[in-house]
């Protein structure tokens, strides 16, 4: 690292293009949208940036706050379920025989090889009224009903007159289910990374000192995997909070999330300033969460250094 001072030209040659790229195509549009959020719609495509806070005031209307709240609730629930489901998966991969590990990791990231839209439609095919889950449930119902008839209880119709398909689509449950399905790998991978680094002798020492498996998990595994848990929670929560495809395709009329509202502002409503304000509200909250995490980890390392 000491040589780039000596080779200034080489340094700038390598440093400039990516910087220019980021400034031009990431920071500049972002700044533009940020500007829009303080603007006013004047015509079909004309926006005057006049420093008004009206868009933010509108965004804090209870109608939108409720959608914000619902988005947070969905994202939090998704994160929690991902953590509960992902932890055992990560533990299983960590303790799997070495030759199975790459295969299991590959299976974890395999969904990324398919477009999200296609995966979501596949989920619809599984969950809809005439979908695979209901086919299986119906088959099970018919067998159970036939068994009841065979033992002479057929006339009582203990399982109902006919099979009632489960309504698994176009409601809030479907949205959370879809979000969990999409975001699970984001949780599993950082958890796996943290658990894989964990020295086995800590677990053995805990068992050796008389702790049960469960106690070892709670007192040793979880605290030592905490950085991985925090990373997993953050990189699950943030994209889950901004999801729009999943609630759009799997949700019902009352399950739209904030990203759906934002999308509508930019597209059908053609109200870019308001959409920009909503976007940036979401971003401020995300930044705040990241700042909290940074402060927490700084606090922890300061505590350890003390």
């Amino acid at each position, binding site marked *: 690292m000491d040589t780039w001072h000596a080779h200034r030209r080489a340094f700038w040659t390598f440093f400039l293009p990516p910087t220019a790229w980021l400034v031009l195509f990431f920071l500049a549009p972002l700044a533009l949208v940020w500007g829009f959020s303080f603007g006013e719609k004047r015509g079909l495509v004309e926006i005057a940036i006049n420093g008004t806070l009206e868009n933010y005031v509108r965004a804090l209307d209870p109608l939108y706050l409720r959608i914000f709240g619902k988005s947070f609730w969905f994202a939090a629930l998704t994160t929690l379920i991902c953590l509960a489901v992902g932890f055992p998966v990560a533990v299983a991969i960590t303790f799997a025989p070495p030759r199975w590990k790459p295969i299991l990791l590959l299976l974890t990231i395999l969904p990324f090889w398919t477009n999200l839209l296609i995966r979501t439609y596949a989920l619809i095919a599984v969950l809809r009224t005439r979908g695979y889950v209901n086919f299986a449930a119906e088959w099970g119902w018919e067998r159970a009903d036939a068994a009841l008839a065979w033992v002479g209880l057929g006339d009582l119709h203990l399982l109902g007159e006919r099979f009632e398909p489960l309504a698994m689509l176009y409601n809030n449950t479907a949205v959370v289910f879809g979000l969990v399905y999409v975001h699970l790998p984001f949780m599993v991978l950082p958890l796996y990374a943290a658990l894989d680094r964990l*020295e086995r*002798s*800590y677990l*053995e*020492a*805990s*068992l*050796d*000192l*008389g*702790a*049960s498996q469960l*106690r070892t998990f709670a*007192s*040793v595994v979880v*605290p*030592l995997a905490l950085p991985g848990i925090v990373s997993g929670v953050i990189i699950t929560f943030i994209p889950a909070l901004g999801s729009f495809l999943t609630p759009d395709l799997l949700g019902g009329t009352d399950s739209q999330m904030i990203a759906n509202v934002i999308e509508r502002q930019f597209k059908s409503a053609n109200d870019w300033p308001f959409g920009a304000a909503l976007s940036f509200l979401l971003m401020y909250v995300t930044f705040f969460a990241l700042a909290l995490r940074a402060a927490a980890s700084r606090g922890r390392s300061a505590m*350890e250094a003390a």
Partner: protein
Amino acid sequence: MKEVRGASTEPPIVEIRGVTKRFGAGRPAVDSVDLEIPRGELFALLGPSGCGKTTLLRMLAGFETPTAGEIRIDGADVAGVPPNRRPVNMVFQSYAVFPHMSVFDNVAYGLKVTGAPVAERRERVREALGLVRLDGLEARKPDQLSGGQRQRVALARALVKRPRVLLLDEPLSALDAKLREAMRLELVNLRIAVGITFVFVTHDQDEALSMADRIAVMEHGRVRQVADPAALYEYPSCRFVADFIGKVNLFEASASAGRDREGRLVLEVPGLGALPVPHPEPVQQGEIGLAVRPEKLRLGESRPDAEIVFEATVEDFAYYGSETRLFLVTEGGVRLSATVPNTDRGPVRIERGARRFVSWAPADTLVLTE
């Protein structure tokens, strides 16, 4: 295998009967081992890496399950007993001191998880930390401790449980040389202070010899010899033990010329001729090895009045401060190494190519039939 039994009439604290451990196909990691460890001993499992000593220790702790055989700790068969229910505790090679807990919490952990009352916990932790001389460091986190201090935390954490047997996996290997030397004596004294049986694994023969009451030497998963340090060094049972413990001159006898008038065995060694050895036990013809420790060799500038004496040329020498090691070749072409203590100050009075008379007493010759 020759086993020197302890004088104690109490039943041994650890009994290992026919224990074998296989990991997959191939040679077993531990191969039909029988061992008895009496109460209150500092017992060493010694051997080169891969000899199965750590696997055997881990079977005592309960981290590995024997493929065959039986392990009894304090009279009770421990088959199927998980590590957290065994009356033993372990000091890990890496110490495995929990990095997210203070020294106090580390030592208290084993008491906390078994539900010891807070007051008792505090008292026993204080006592254990005193024992390993870590008083005053209760609030420290492990990353604020030196390697030696971390090891003491690991020791205190295990001892606070008052185990029937304390297991130590290469306890000194992570320390630097000076500290290691000091910790040897400290561990021995600690064992005496707590009166608990210590079983430790080491690949370092000096460590085993200087610390242990008795040593089991292992090779390829088998126990080759169990003896106290002096017996192991002076009366090794086989070529492997003779060679592994300390340094040795090993010769292969080509034939036995029978016994002389004093009843000593006379063995023909190529290049050295007939050597008399006191060895009352009968021996099979062939495959007999002879061994002499380098420090048993006497060197002189004039021919001494000795039964076994050879004229040899100094091929090389190495100065070690307290002693000088010489590498000699006899006129018959046999290589010998000799250790001479540097009892006098002053320059080393030896040079390459010098002629010396090498002699040793017949009683210092070991007969190795394995």
